[in-house]
């Protein structure tokens, strides 16, 4: 068994303009992953500008100085690659995986949109992508049962002014209200080499990558001063909160959520193991007690997981959907009881073993591809300043003891800190 969770070499450098470059070679397959993390997420958005970081994720595919609109997608897919980008509260990432002979193409494309987006950003593109984002909001959040749960949980978990209070998809009114110039300024602030990490994993030599990074990114100007994300205090933000929503849903569903610890801390590792014990798999507490035992929850709906956020106590979310004839109140009480019992009685060694084994496999699945590795390296470089720390997460999970799980459970799963979100089918409420 590998002692580290990351048995591949890692080399790093930093260009004069501040761009951090990470390379992790693995020549077994002729495939290379290019990944950039920009240290900008919805946590940076001031009031009135929510949804900006995410809209940018779209605009970055719409052309830059030397790359006409839609060319980015055409060149990556048309050379055999896969690509995408995502935005979350903490950051925005961009990534492509290509046959290795196209590494230089990917670096050229990424440099062009890092350094050359603003002159190419026009009103027509902005308007078009605002429409696309509105459709994304409809498709992912509004037109599906329970689709807006995350949008509802965040303001219950984090107070106004806290960087995690508002969701990444943002407000359509904010997006509509902003002028082109505001978006151009947003890019100038955050899409600078000294606010990014570039990682290349797979079939490439570090020296070659460093030289290419210098060639394509080395002449990009460093950014100016950037407004820091608000810190956000949770002081005096306590007390159980609950919210009941009547909606077009096919059955009652209950979410319990708690603020826990920031991603990257030993406590969060313990919390991740705890979440697996609580709600991952048929051997989990929620499955055994609510789906199988009491038959209150629909079996394939029980789950518990931590949301990996690093700049404030990250949420743990447990949820279940009621079986026919079971009320939300009964399900909610039972869900809370399972959590409370875990706090009161701790966990067994067998539960710990099961959870660690599942997490071990999950880890190796994550690093089985060069794209999975590249994203983790960018993550650790961005969040903690050291990509090599990626190797510590698996050992961190392995080191979690039953006592450590019990301790974090007692500290952060108290009923008085609980957020409860309940969906009731419309007709049941009427």
């Amino acid at each position, binding site marked *: 068994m590998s002692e580290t969770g990351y048995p591949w070499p890692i080399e790093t450098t930093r260009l004069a303009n501040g761009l951090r470059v990470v390379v992790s070679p693995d020549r077994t397959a002729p495939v290379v992953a290019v990944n950039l993390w920009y240290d900008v997420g919805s946590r940076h958005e001031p009031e009135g500008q929510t949804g900006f970081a995410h809209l940018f994720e779209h605009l970055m595919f719409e052309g830059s100085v030397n790359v006409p609109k839609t060319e980015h997608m055409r060149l990556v897919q048309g050379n055999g690659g896969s690509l995408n980008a995502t935005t979350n509260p903490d950051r925005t990432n961009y990534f492509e995986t290509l046959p290795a002979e196209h590494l230089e193409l990917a670096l050229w494309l990424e440099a062009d949109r890092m350094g050359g987006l603003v002159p190419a950003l026009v009103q027509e593109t902005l308007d078009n992508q605002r429409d*696309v984002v509105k459709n994304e909001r409809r498709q992912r959040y509004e037109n*599906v049962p329970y689709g807006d749960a995350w949008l509802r949980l965040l303001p219950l978990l984090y107070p106004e002014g806290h960087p995690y209070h508002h969701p990444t998809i943002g407000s359509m009114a904010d997006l509509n209200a902003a002028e082109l110039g505001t978006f151009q300024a947003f890019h100038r602030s955050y899409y600078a080499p000294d606010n990014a990490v570039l990682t290349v994993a797979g079939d490439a030599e570090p020296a070659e990558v460093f030289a290419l990074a210098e060639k394509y990114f080395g002449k990009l100007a460093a950014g100016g001063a950037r407004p820091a994300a608000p810190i956000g205090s949770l002081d005096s933000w306590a007390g159980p909160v609950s919210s009941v929503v009547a909606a077009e849903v096919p059955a009652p569903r209950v979410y319990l959520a708690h603020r826990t610890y920031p991603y990257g801390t030993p406590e969060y590792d313990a919390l991740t193991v705890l979440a697996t014990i609580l709600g991952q798999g048929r051997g989990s507490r929620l499955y055994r007690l609510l789906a199988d035992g009491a038959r209150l929850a629909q079996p394939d709906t029980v789950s518990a997981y931590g949301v990996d956020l690093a700049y404030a106590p990250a949420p743990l979310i447990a949820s279940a959907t009621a079986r026919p004839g079971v009320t939300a109140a009964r399900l909610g009480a039972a869900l809370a009881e399972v959590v409370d019992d875990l706090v009161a009685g701790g966990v067994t060694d067998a539960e710990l073993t099961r959870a660690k*084994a599942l997490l071990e496999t999950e880890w190796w699945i994550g690093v089985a591809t060069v794209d999975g590795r590249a994203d983790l390296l960018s993550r650790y470089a961005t969040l903690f300043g050291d990509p090599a720390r990626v190797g510590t997460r698996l050992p961190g999970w392995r080191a979690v003891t039953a006592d450590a799980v019990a301790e974090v459970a007692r500290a952060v799963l108290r009923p008085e800190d609980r957020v409860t979100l309940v969906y009731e089918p419309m007709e049941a409420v009427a």
Partner: protein
Amino acid sequence: MTQLIAQRPEPGTPRPYRFPTVVRRDVAGGQVVAADLPGHNLAVASLLLDAGGGRETTGVEGVAEVLAKALEEGTTARSAADYAVALESLGTDLSLSVDWDSFSATVQVPVAALPAAVELLAEAVRRPKLDPADVTRVRDDEAESLRLYWANPGPRADAVLRADLFGGEVRHGRPLSGDPRSVAGLSVDDVLGFHRSWFAAPGTLLVVGDLSRIDLDALGRAAFAGATEAAALAGEPFPVGARASRRIVIVDRPGSVQSTLRLGHTAPHRSHPDYVPMTLGAIVLGGAFTSRLNHLLREVKGYTYGIRSEYGLSRRFGRFVVSAGVQTAVTAPALVDAVGEIARTQAEGVTEPELAVARDWRAGQLSVGLQSPRAYAGALATLVVHDLPDDYHARLRESLLHATVEEVSAATAAHLNPTGITLVIEGDAEKIQNDLAATDLGEVTVTAV
């Protein structure tokens, strides 16, 4: 001062394409098909049985899925809870999957745990307890699970399309997993009978991982223990029945902020000689991000978050489907544009720049998309289900790269059917019906399903 490099770089020299060595081994009456991935910590084993949805008879659709769930309700050796803990303590769940052509049970673990995981996999698949009370409960849960799933946009539209294309009297004219009603109507005997009929054959064990650390014969013996007979042959492909006229069916979803589009027609089966040009044509039309459909409806008009077209092809039948969610208010113009692009592609074929994207994309995905043991297990399953040779992926790559504009245009002309396509729209009927009728794309009917 920022300086960008204007010149797009040329590609380097590609390394030759190589699919891992495929090892085939006859063991204990079954076959092991394996791919070697040296150095990988993870290994995957998947037992593939010729027991997919296509083996179900009409009236019991969904029985394979219910059986799949019931396999985890305890074995002759241990209770459901003990089974779950034993398997998950090795680091894996039992991933059960039913498609039209096959049933598969898959485990994925650090390589040292593979023998124990395959033992447990075989225990559930070959020696399940299948207690009638458990089977009844699982059936009820599955019916409820489908009811919850059908509350999402999509499943109802897809069921309506499928019934319209193939007719409700054949199995593949009904949903793969059945519907809430068909599943609720299953009996314990239906479930036990399906296990008796289709789970007695040895099937094929797919194994992917570092083979220097894996004893394939031992895994095969564990997976095939107790298997008896060979499965019956699957049967010939069904004839492709093409419609001559277009129709619009609205599946009412009052209050919906989007209309869910499922546009489709019948197509040849997976082993048709036009497979490569036909699927490349679908990429030009609606597969790549810069495809005709996505470019027009998303990037130019802003009607949708995304629209795609693809062929769904199995051993005995196939269909062509366009899927999208569009804003309610633009449902009619979006539909006109989508049908227009399908018709244009059928009539005029594809261009070289578009085809270049499609062929390089698919060829590249044979490397980029095949990295993990799980992905390779999927590739091996394709070989087994469609009876393809070990060098299939390398050959496929060559035929993709050599497909010409003429071949692909001939395939789009032959296999796209814009005048006989069925246009299913799941949305707010009251808001969209008149607009859709005014498009003259076809007669409009409304169904509540």
